[in-house]
């Protein structure tokens, strides 16, 4: 029985170490299945883009260690193996993520640009750097985010930092596997309850919500200081690595259609089509995009769906005002609710045309960035790398299969040997012995034969078990060898890519400044004077708070006319108001967003002396916008069906009442 015990011990050991997974992924992302492709139904005013696609493109030298450390510390979707952490492997995976994000973001850009009007999608590569506080941050490398856009999309292709888990279930972007991390934000004015967050990958959803909340705070602080302009937020993925403060927002699973909630996109490891991947760098053929059919095309549809359900005017009004303020500060605040005055309309039209010129110019930069990386040597090398990675994975998958065969054989051997021994072993039937001596001889021969068979079986089991273990080691070593060999190549490629983006930006920026100055001159020469100009003055909300700021039409130092008001109330609420005011207080049609620690809500309709009064559209988290009756700031019940709701944006052509709310 001692041998049986040995055999079982071996089999247990083999089972524990011998079963191998083979780095599988899903063939089609949820984004490809969840919704029907819908055409873009929205339009944007000239100078406003539909989407800006942001992605990590570079890590500055002095930020590299912090980036690697944070990346290792904040792994997503897996658990570290017990093996010692290898810094070189972590760096190779981290650098690989940047290279792949750079490349796959262009697939998403290509698909989005193909489904939207010309010049309406811009690229915004980010450089990861250390902020003033010594923490990681990211900054745009181009001017794309200086233009108003309906949504911003963050894209990162992710890999879990433990190379030992490459063949397991942990997220990976390597070879034929891609794990996208995405978020989609609009301006919070178009999605008050979620503070602008529309969709986010599940693991970074709360961080993205935190980013949205910080964005709200920064925007309100800027308005309070009399400007529309706010700094560009870092990439959500970098905020996640930084462990920046998170926030809770109502969310829903992918494919659900609950209003005023964030869609949570599951973490997916997508396996690309091997046939497409095999032809990825075929000479003479057009560039194959393996991500298109598995993810990019469907994701572009998702973004279009989000844009279709977003109030374009609310999403872009403040960023548009910020862009116009560069040319014409006295016009900027008036553009929030617009006007029918001939002098305003004439001037606004000129300003829009300037932004349109900027938009087209920056769009050329995006197209050239795409072309330079995707169609140039950088793209060819990236595709070569994907092919090599795929071959590498295939070899390791083959090893995994062999390992599993060996494991199975070892286990079956143990079971067969055990069964044989339990049944008395093999040999002659000794009961037919004619004498006692013959019987003992027969028994001795049988025992000897059984010993040989058992020894051979155990030797076989031990060998196959050892082979399985060896194959496992070999597979891990292959991963390690590949990552350590390719690390300098990744670094070199990143350097060339950054050179390309930097060079593009340098060339663009010099001429962009020049273009802007010429546009400014043209604008100054041609514009007519405004009868009513926007300035900065006091906003008192309901009269109780005196510390608010109004950007718009003023009289006697107080809000009087159209504009934007913002203040922080003594009870901790932050209030922003867009519409008409009299004597510092909202009066007439307006749109008010109230932020509290519990969340944000929006009210649109008629205001009297700072209080909602009449039929109001009320927007809260997780619910469809409701039309309610209000009296002196207090809700009095549901408004009769069909009750008209006053809106301050009726002079804005792109305002879609209730969209996104």
């Amino acid at each position, binding site marked *: 029985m001692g041998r049986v015990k040995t055999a079982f011990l071996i089999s247990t050991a083999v089972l524990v170490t011998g079963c191998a997974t083979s780095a599988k992924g899903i063939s089609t992302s949820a984004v490809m299945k969840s919704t029907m492709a819908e055409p873009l139904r929205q339009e944007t005013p000239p100078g406003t883009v539909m989407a800006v696609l942001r992605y990590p493109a570079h890590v500055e030298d002095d930020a590299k260690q912090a980036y690697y450390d944070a990346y290792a510390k904040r792994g997503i979707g897996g658990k570290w193996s017990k093996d010692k952490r290898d810094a070189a492997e972590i760096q190779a995976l981290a650098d690989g993520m940047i290279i792949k994000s750079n490349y796959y973001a262009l697939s998403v850009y290509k698909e989005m640009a193909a489904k939207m009007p010309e010049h309406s999608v811009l690229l915004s590569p980010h450089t990861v750097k250390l902020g003033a506080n010594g923490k990681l941050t990211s900054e745009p490398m181009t001017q794309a985010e200086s233009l108003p856009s309906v949504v911003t999309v963050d894209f990162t292709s992710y890999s879990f930092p433990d190379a030992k888990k490459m063949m397991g279930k942990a997220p990976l972007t390597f070879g034929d596997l891609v794990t996208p991390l995405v978020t989609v934000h609009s301006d919070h004015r178009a999605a008050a309850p979620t503070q602008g967050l529309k969709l986010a990958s599940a693991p970074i959803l709360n961080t993205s919500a935190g980013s949205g909340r910080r964005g709200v705070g920064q925007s309100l602080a800027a308005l309070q200081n009399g400007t529309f302009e706010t700094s560009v937020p870092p990439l959500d993925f970098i905020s996640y690595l930084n462990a920046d403060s998170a926030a809770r927002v109502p969310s829903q699973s992918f494919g659900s259609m609950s209003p005023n909630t964030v869609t949570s996109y599951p973490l997916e490891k997508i396996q690309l089509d091997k046939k497409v991947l095999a032809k990825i760098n075929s000479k003479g053929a057009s560039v194959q995009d393996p991500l298109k059919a598995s993810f990019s095309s469907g994701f572009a549809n998702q973004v279009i769906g989000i844009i279709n359900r977003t109030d374009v005017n609310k999403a872009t009004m403040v960023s548009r005002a910020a862009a116009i303020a560069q040319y014409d500060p006295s016009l900027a605040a008036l553009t929030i609710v617009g006007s029918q005055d*001939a002098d305003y309309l*004439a001037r606004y*039209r*000129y300003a829009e*045309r*300037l932004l349109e*010129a900027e938009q*087209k*110019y920056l769009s*050329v*930069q995006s197209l*050239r960035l795409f*072309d*330079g990386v995707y169609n*140039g*040597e*950088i793209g*060819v*090398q990236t595709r*070569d*790398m994907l092919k*090599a990675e795929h071959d*590498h994975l295939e070899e390791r998958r083959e090893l995994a299969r062999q390992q599993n065969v060996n494991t199975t054989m070892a286990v079956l051997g143990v079971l067969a040997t055990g069964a044989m021994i339990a049944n008395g072993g093999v040999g002659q039937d000794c009961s037919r012995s004619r004498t006692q001596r013959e019987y003992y001889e027969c028994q001795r021969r049988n025992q000897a034969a059984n010993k040989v068979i058992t*020894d051979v079986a*155990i*030797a076989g089991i*031990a*060998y196959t078990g*050892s*082979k399985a273990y*060896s194959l496992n*080691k*070999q597979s891990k*070593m*292959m991963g390690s*060898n*590949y990552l*350590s*060999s*390719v690390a*300098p*190549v990744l670094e*070199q*490629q990143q350097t*060339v890519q950054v*050179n*390309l983006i930097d*060079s*593009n930006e340098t*060339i*663009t920026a010099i*001429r962009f400044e*020049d*273009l802007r100055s*010429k*546009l400014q001159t*043209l604008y100054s020469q*041609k514009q*007519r004077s405004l009868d009513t100009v926007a300035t900065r003055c006091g906003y008192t909300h309901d009269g109780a708070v005196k510390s608010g700021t109004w950007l718009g039409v003023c009289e006697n130092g107080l809000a009087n006319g159209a504009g934007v008001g913002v203040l922080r109330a003594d009870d901790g609420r932050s209030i922003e108001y867009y519409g008409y005011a009299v004597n510092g207080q909202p009066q007439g049609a307006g749109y008010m967003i109230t932020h509290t620690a519990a969340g944000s809500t929006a009210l649109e309709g008629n205001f009297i002396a700072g209080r909602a009064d009449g039929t109001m559209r009320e927007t809260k988290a997780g619910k469809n916008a409701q039309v309610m009756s209000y009296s002196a700031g207090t809700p009095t019940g549901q408004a009769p069906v069909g009750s008209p709701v006053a809106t301050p944006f009726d002079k804005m052509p792109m305002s879609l009442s209730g969209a996104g709310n």
Partner: protein
Amino acid sequence: MKHLLSIITGLAVLSAPAMAQTAAPSGDVAIVAPSQQYCVTVMSGFPNDDHVARYQFFRLTQDIAEGATPQFRAALSQYGDADVNAQTPILDVIEAIANPVLRQAAPEMVIGFMEHLIDFEDRCGVYLDGQISSLKAYDGDLIWEDPLIAEDALFLRQILSESLERAGASNDPSHAFASQDYAANLISTRDNMEFQVFTTEIDDLEALYMTDLDGRLARSNDIINKEMDRESLDDAITLANDMDKDFKEKEDQRRLYTLWRILGR
């Protein structure tokens, strides 16, 4: 306006014989339904020695009649008083409208002349369109949206608006709205024209900068892409493969040794 004056000066010589021939007795403008005879008569007063000038005057007449509502035409009828008829050459009519002395001294004459042109366009629009189409078919280089013609038409319409103001239409309850509306319309037309000029300038600037940028970026991309050392990837993969092979050989040896040990027990 320079354009208008040059046309007028040029055509003054050309149309002098026509003026002599058409010194017809004055009479009221026909107010009855479109009459082919009337239209042909007025059109014969347009320049006929130069097809470009004839085309430009037809287009100018069309543009002049822009924005003339029935209410506004009633005001013209009320305040206009000019000695003009179907035989009056078009050049004389336009010269009279553009005459600064006449504008100051006799706004009702200016109104009357403009009313004559507007009335002609209204009654003979079909013939006018036909003539314009024929001329365009004859000469494909003729421009439909000629900014100079549009500028001249707007100038004449502004003269008309000012003349009405001078004649007191804006204080007349019956005609104030129509004349003020016409004046506001002129401002918006002027805005549109100025915006058009601005857009053209921006278009040029945009084309210049975008082409320049595109070329520079393409060249820069080509240069930087050449920095890519594609052999380095091949080398790295070869190195990794060699390391894998080496490790595999060692593992095979180790396994053989294990087997030997097992069998040798």
